[in-house]
């Protein structure tokens, strides 16, 4: 399958700062990729290059088979900027009619598009009276115009409540099923976990990790934590068995081990029999995995 987006060895400098260092990635039709990274990691810069809004220094970028920002590419790419802004004097409907006309579509679809993002009731009100979440939905509605082959979404769910977020990802699932490739950035790891096919972690302008969450989890090989609670009167015995563990107050012992030693450790705990009354196994969280990959040199 021809990739919708191909980036190879992309480098971008702002004066002395290297915003992107030899970044490569491909995105096939119907795939959803999440771009994670600190503020200033290069996420927005990469998106703006893909959209053709800013030039790049070296490398190659191909969007739907053409140069980013070319008329052919712009006709097939939709964008949702971070903090989508519109002219406050226009109503939601008028703004969408304008965007529809710019894409050569029938402006009459405006109301229907607004209804799809739950804004049908406010379509005839001025955008100046909208809340941040409502403006974000206008932004979402305009990305649904036509049949974009590539969606570029910069922090799309910021300002949306949890229910709207779920609706939003349902919309994305529908688009992806029709073959739209989706590149989105986010800070909210838990929500991209379930709703994207691939995670890309940018750090200091470099692509430091790429893969499914399971891939990244395996590659990071972060230790697993155990929290073991001793039965009354057995705290001392537990502490003696696991001298490497950290003692908590109320008979609680915390243990850490590598993924490969998880089962042997579990067997040792089970061997204690009635001396143990409770046990929790805590896998590395998404945040742990993310900070493992995105930590910068010297941190």
């Amino acid at each position, binding site marked *: 399958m021809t990739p919708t987006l191909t980036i190879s060895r992309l480098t971008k400098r702002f004066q002395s700062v290297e915003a992107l260092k030899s970044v490569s990635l491909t995105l096939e039709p119907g795939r959803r990729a999440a771009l994670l990274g600190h503020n200033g990691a290069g996420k927005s810069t990469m998106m*703006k290059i893909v*959209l*053709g*809004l*800013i030039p790049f220094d070296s490398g190659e970028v191909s969007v739907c088979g053409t140069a980013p920002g070319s*008329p052919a590419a*712009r*006709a097939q*790419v*939709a*964008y*949702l*900027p971070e*903090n*989508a*802004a*519109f*002219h406050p*004097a*226009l109503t939601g409907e*008028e*703004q969408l*009619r*304008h*965007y529809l*006309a*710019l*894409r*050569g579509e029938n*402006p009459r679809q405006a109301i229907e598009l607004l209804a799809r993002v739950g804004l049908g009731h406010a379509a005839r009100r*001025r955008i100046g009276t909208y809340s941040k979440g409502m403006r974000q939905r206008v*932004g979402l509605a*305009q990305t649904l115009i036509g049949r974009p082959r590539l969606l570029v979404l910069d922090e799309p769910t910021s300002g949306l409540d949890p229910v709207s977020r779920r609706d939003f990802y349902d919309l994305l699932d529908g688009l992806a099923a029709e073959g739209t490739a989706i590149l989105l950035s986010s800070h909210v790891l838990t929500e991209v976990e379930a709703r994207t096919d691939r995670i890309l972690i940018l750090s200091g302008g470099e692509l430091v990790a790429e893969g499914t969450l399971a891939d990244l989890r395996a590659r990071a090989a972060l230790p697993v934590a155990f929290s073991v609670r001793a039965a009354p009167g057995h705290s001392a015995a537990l502490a003696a068995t696991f001298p490497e563990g950290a003692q908590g107050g109320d008979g609680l012992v915390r243990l850490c081990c590598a993924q490969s030693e998880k089962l042997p450790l579990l067997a040792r705990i089970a061997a204690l029999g009635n001396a143990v009354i409770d046990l929790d196994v805590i896998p590395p969280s998404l945040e742990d995995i993310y900070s493992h990959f995105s930590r910068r040199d010297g941190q």
Partner: protein
Amino acid sequence: MNRILATATSEFRIAFRNRWVSIATGMMVLFALVLAAAGSAPTGDVGVDRLSVTVASLTSLAVYLVPLLALLMSFDAVAGEVERGTLPLLLTYPVSRLQILLGKLLAHLAILGLAVTLGYGTAALVAVWSDPEAVNGFGALWRLIWSSVLLGATFLGTGYALSALARRPSGAAGLAIALWLVAVVLYDLALLALIVTDGGGAFTTQALPVALLANPADAFRVFNLSAAQAVAAAGGLGGAAGAIPLWQSAASLFFWPLAAIALAAAAFRRVTP
């Protein structure tokens, strides 16, 4: 073309909601009425109809007001989009930057055209009402309307260019006012000072016509006054209009809007969102 029209429709709507249509129209009508009332004295002996005299007065008014209105409407065009944060999204649409500018120009020209037509029209009604002969001046009135629109296009284009160069509305507003002062007020004062010191020498005969054609506002005044053969009725720099062939001032009137739009397009192309 549809993209230009769509942009123009949105821009017109925004200008209407921001009261620009009523401000521009109200201003033109008010000033035209004042001129029509004040200009009612010098008729009869001049040998021209009442409307032609009114048009000569309106020309002097338009030289100041049309560039001012055009700059006020245009300074926000690019800088405002940058400040509101609406520009990046707009530029990802399949619409060229020139199409965006032309759409804005079309909307702003429509407003300006409406304002001058209603303004001058009101003055013309007053003239015709008091002097039936004034209908002979309709040709001059029509010429004044379309040349005002061309003058407006020049300053709209220049306003867009300043807006793109400044990138912030406050900076763009300052540049626009400075341009208005220089092009419309100080330029003429400087020419007058040079004429006085020159005393009818080489400057007045050789350089002055070129200097008048080089400034779109002066070219507009010269064109309307010489076309109406109302040179005698106009004082000041307008008196020099007789020395300049009509086709030259007309050429200047048509050249400047194109040059201004080209300048605006070049400046807008350099804006990185």
